[in-house]
């Protein structure tokens, strides 16, 4: 799977017009210089050979060198990964924390005013462009109310010792609680902008699978036995309803990575999404390849995780 993705990515990136050697050296470079650099970068070899060389290095964790920053792509990605992971996880955390309970309540009180309102709100959440939501958040909470800070991960005069690269973890490790709090404040707007779509999808999925499960015989049996209503909902229904929801959450993480390109650009968040955007602008072959491969790999990994979670939630599934 990943191999197929890597082949496609490699050839697609090669198809991007513009000679990277020429771009790197600028318009003033002589033919000679350009040729020399092309040889040095391996661009003079046939594309299939280039791919095999790339694959040989890739399995050893070497994704090539960014032609813009001159640093190894792997290193560049690793430096930026914590920022993106922190943002994505926080966004997902909000999405699940709000989405699942709202979906459950909606299903339990089906057709109530509350249910109808949340259904419309959830659909609205799916229908909003992320970058607009981000800008509206900045307008309301950043500028008009001056409640939340932006852009970036921390204020310019706050410094923390980088250990893991996660602002929240590092500040706790160094017992810097004011930086921890500041980190959270900086996270809120980008995380809401990024997580709203996922939240809406989680609400819709939880609601519909809860409704399905609530009609099952075992739920009716539990009710008939006289199990307390909240216990029926949480113990009998929710556990079974979580299966499709978990799948959807897994898929959403993939979408979040796409959304992070936009969110990180708006909030100047120094993560993988931001560099994805920049590398495309600068025809940084190695970097684009690295970013897309990383995204695809993460996607595959998350699907694997979802399968494992399935086994935890459903004892009938065994690997």
């Amino acid at each position: 799977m990943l191999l197929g993705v890597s082949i496609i990515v490699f050839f697609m990136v090669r198809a991007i017009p513009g000679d990277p050697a020429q771009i790197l050296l600028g318009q003033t470079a002589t033919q000679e210089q350009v040729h020399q650099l092309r040889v040095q970068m391996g661009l003079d070899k046939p594309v299939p050979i280039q791919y095999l060389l790339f694959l040989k290095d890739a399995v050893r964790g070497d994704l090539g060198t960014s032609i813009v920053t001159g640093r190894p792509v792997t290193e560049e990605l690793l430096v930026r990964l914590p920022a993106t992971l922190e943002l994505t996880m926080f966004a997902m955390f909000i999405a699940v924390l709000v989405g699942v309970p709202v979906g459950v309540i909606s299903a339990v009180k089906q057709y109530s005013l509350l249910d109808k309102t949340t259904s419309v709100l959830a659909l609205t959440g799916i229908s909003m462009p992320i970058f607009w939501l981000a800008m509206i958040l900045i307008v309301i909470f950043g500028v008009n109310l001056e409640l939340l800070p932006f852009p970036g991960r921390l204020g310019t005069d706050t410094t923390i010792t980088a250990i893991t690269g996660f602002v929240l973890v590092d500040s706790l490790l160094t017992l810097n609680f004011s930086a921890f709090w500041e980190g959270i404040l900086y996270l809120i707007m980008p995380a809401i902008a990024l997580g709203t779509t996922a939240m809406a999808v989680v609400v819709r999925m939880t609601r519909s699978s809860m409704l399905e499960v609530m009609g099952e015989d075992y739920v009716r049996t539990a009710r008939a036995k006289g199990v307390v209503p909240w216990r029926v909902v949480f113990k009998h229904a929710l556990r079974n309803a979580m299966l499709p929801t978990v799948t959807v959450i897994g898929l959403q993480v993939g979408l979040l990575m796409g959304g992070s390109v936009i969110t990180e650009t708006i909030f100047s968040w120094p993560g993988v999404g931001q560099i994805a955007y920049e590398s495309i602008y600068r025809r940084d072959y190695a970097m684009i390849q690295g970013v897309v491969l990383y995204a695809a790999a993460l996607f595959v990994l998350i699907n694997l995780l979802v399968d494992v979670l399935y086994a935890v939630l459903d004892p009938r599934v065994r690997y």
Partner: protein
Amino acid sequence: MAETQVQQDTSAASGVKTRSRREDFVRAFFSNRLALFGGIAISIFILMAIFAPLVAPYDPLAQNLTEKFAGPSLAHPFGQDELGRDILSRIIYGARISLTAGLAAVAVATVVGTIVGLVAGYLGRWPDSLLMRIMDVLLAFPSILLAIVIVSILGPSLPNAMLAIGIVFIPQIARVVRSAVISVRERDYIEAERALGAGDVQIVFSGVLPNSMAPLIVQATLTLATAILDIAALSFLGLGARAPSPEWGAMLTDAFHSGYGVFVEGQHAIIFPGIAIALCVLSVNFVGDGLRDAMDPRRRG
């Protein structure tokens, strides 16, 4: 003789059944107030797009630098943008671009996706596995990332953005069509056509495709909503419509890139184009949801 009689009876019975099903469908769709609202809103957007020159009060490109970020007033209900252009007029003209772009992307996805789904579902065996593997690989990319890569290859422009979004949505359409085809492939009426000597192509177009239409239409409608959003997102990344185009995503992009001032004094330049996108996409989603619920008797409220 007796056999013919029976056959006529069943066909008459099924004829009645389809008609009532269609009636049911129409009634279910129109009794859904949200779907109705969506349908009306979409119609307004479409009319607005068609008659833009008649409806728009100003030229969407006419600048008036002295009135930069002038707020909403009677003369300019939605205010003016970073170059003093009338935002209402730009939104009206933008409906043309955003709707056409969305429809074009969906057309690409639907045509190619339907062909892939039909071939895979109807032929089965290795063509099926091969095509679906390819679709799986396409699905392995986060959609907007794939679109970004495709647009960078083709070069950034609105038509290429439409094409890229179209390509990205092929797998979803293909999957829906394939599963619909598989579910009708072995039905008796297909068998009957084959017995009457119809070729594969004829069977596909007269028997399989029409009976796979319902899920296809629902999927295409829901795809349209996402396509409009994604095209706006590509414009935001500088890979779709460019200034001075009044495409809705581009309007927001231009406002955003005009500097920090837009967040302070030009807030209406952010709010209104975004509402246009959200309202349009929301309406399409209402219609899509309404169609799906109306077609599936189990989901009728």
